[in-house]
């Protein structure tokens, strides 16, 4: 078998310069951590601001006519027609059995007039397949362009709004799950959304690849900003209870058993018109056979992905993400259990290296989200 050379993001040289430990991830050479280490990088993001290179993810632009949103709704369960200009929605590409092909961010640019446009951020591992899926399903009704010359940076943490306000007024104009385009001197047009994968307030910035390193270096000029690797990105999202595609979600999990029913728009729950609707409707009425839950081992033992979950000596599920939560601090996990055992407080046994470790089903997230939300009461 011919080995495909690993790709590099536009920030690869910067990662090397900062002393990153580089690992192969989704066909890219990515920084897993810097000399500071995962624990400190994690804590820095929760207390100040962390800068993440997420350029390995795919940015996809879809252009169509006035009926673009109707066509796009045939692929996802979300209310896309109801998206306001400048609004972002988390959604799921579904297969005909209601299984999840990928999870993604769907953004309606603030400036679209006449012609309709959507911007999507999809996972690194599945981006090629997602683009092919979108092209075949939207065939003739929309143009699907994979924007390979874009870089994507995430600035996350309580100080990220203050930092970004030095460049543009996005922190004033955007609330959680809103987006817009901002011209910034020296760095071109930045497409910014107030979104992230840490549970903190924060922003994701899409910009031209050739501007990415200069922008990252400028942000790192603030003492409160440190570059953060994929290791801490994973522990941050796990504490925030956010699922990771390929681990907590895959083609056999549905929005209902994954606990993502809120992704299904109200109108769509009644009218359907998305892949796997009959299966999903049945699960909504009857309840799913299993559910995604949070799990806390009672001692310090870490229950990693693949750990069997038992009750009374019988297997009732498995861990799909597990590790150490630095903010608690302590071990945390996410997994699927039979619905009868999904209630918070249920005692379960985790089989780690052949030994049984007591644990408890808990509600997600492990660490409260700190999103800055739009409120009708805000001035």
């Amino acid at each position, binding site marked *: 078998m011919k080995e495909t050379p690993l790709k590099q993001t536009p920030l690869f040289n910067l990662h090397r310069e900062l002393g990153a430990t580089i690992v192969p991830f989704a066909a890219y050479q990515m920084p897993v951590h810097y000399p500071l280490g*995962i*624990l400190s990088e994690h804590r820095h993001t929760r207390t100040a601001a962390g800068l993440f290179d997420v350029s390995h993810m795919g940015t996809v632009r879809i252009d169509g006519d006035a009926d673009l949103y109707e066509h796009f709704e045939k692929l996802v369960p979300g209310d896309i027609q109801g998206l306001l200009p400048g609004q972002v929605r988390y959604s799921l590409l579904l297969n005909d059995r209601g299984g999840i092909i990928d999870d993604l961010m769907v953004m309606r640019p603030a400036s679209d007039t006449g012609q309709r446009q959507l911007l999507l951020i999809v996972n690194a591992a599945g981006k090629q397949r997602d683009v092919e899926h979108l092209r075949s399903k939207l065939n003739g009704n929309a143009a699907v362009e994979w924007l390979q010359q874009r870089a994507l940076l995430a600035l996350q943490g309580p100080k990220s709004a203050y930092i970004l306000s030095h460049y543009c007024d996005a922190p004033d104009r955007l609330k959680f799950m809103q987006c817009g385009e901002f011209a910034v001197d020296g760095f071109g047009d930045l497409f910014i959304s107030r979104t992230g994968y840490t549970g903190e307030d924060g922003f994701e910035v899409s910009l031209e690849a050739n501007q990415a390193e200069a922008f990252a270096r400028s942000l790192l000029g603030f003492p409160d900003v440190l570059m953060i690797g994929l*290791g801490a990105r994973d522990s941050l999202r796990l504490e925030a209870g956010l699922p990771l595609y390929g681990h907590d979600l895959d083609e056999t999990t549905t929005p209902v058993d994954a606990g993502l029913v809120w992704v299904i728009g109200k109108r769509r729950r009644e009218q359907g018109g998305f892949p796997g609707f009959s299966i999903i409707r049945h699960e909504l009425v009857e309840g799913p056979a299993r559910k995604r839950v949070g799990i806390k081992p009672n001692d*310090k*033992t*870490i229950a990693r992905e693949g750990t069997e979950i038992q009750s009374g000596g019988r297997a009732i599920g498995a861990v799909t993400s597990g590790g*150490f939560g630095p903010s608690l601090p302590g071990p945390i996990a996410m997994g699927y259990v039979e619905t009868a055992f999904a209630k918070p407080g249920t005692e379960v046994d985790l089989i780690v*290296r052949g030994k049984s470790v007591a644990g408890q089903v808990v509600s997600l997230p492990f660490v409260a989200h700190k999103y800055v939300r739009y409120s009708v009461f805000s001035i």
Partner: protein
Amino acid sequence: MSIVPDNLKYVKTHEWANLEQDGLVQVGISDFAQHQLGDVVFIELPERGRKVIAGEACAVIESVKAASDIYSPVSGEIVDVNTVLTDVPELVNQDSYLHWLFRVKPSNPAELDKLLIAGQYAASVSSV
């Protein structure tokens, strides 16, 4: 560069062994190993009284990144474990030579002669 004290013996799987005056062998992990593991968050120690053979996995160190087996450098009986590490596993990151994991009563002390000396171990990790 990682620290490799001269007075200890090493295994290529990154454990160190120290023959104490009472004839017991103290076992820990090298500075190189703790650095590679990253932040240690959990240590599973063997049961006292367990019989092990040289090269047998008998403890587990969990870092934020992954779980790693720890192999006994010598054969014998586990007579003591450092329970402080059960509560404060991150001590291994602070000084992996001060904070040993377990003590073995060796059944064949000659096995110690086959372990790597500091210079050999240092050479093996400097190429990584």
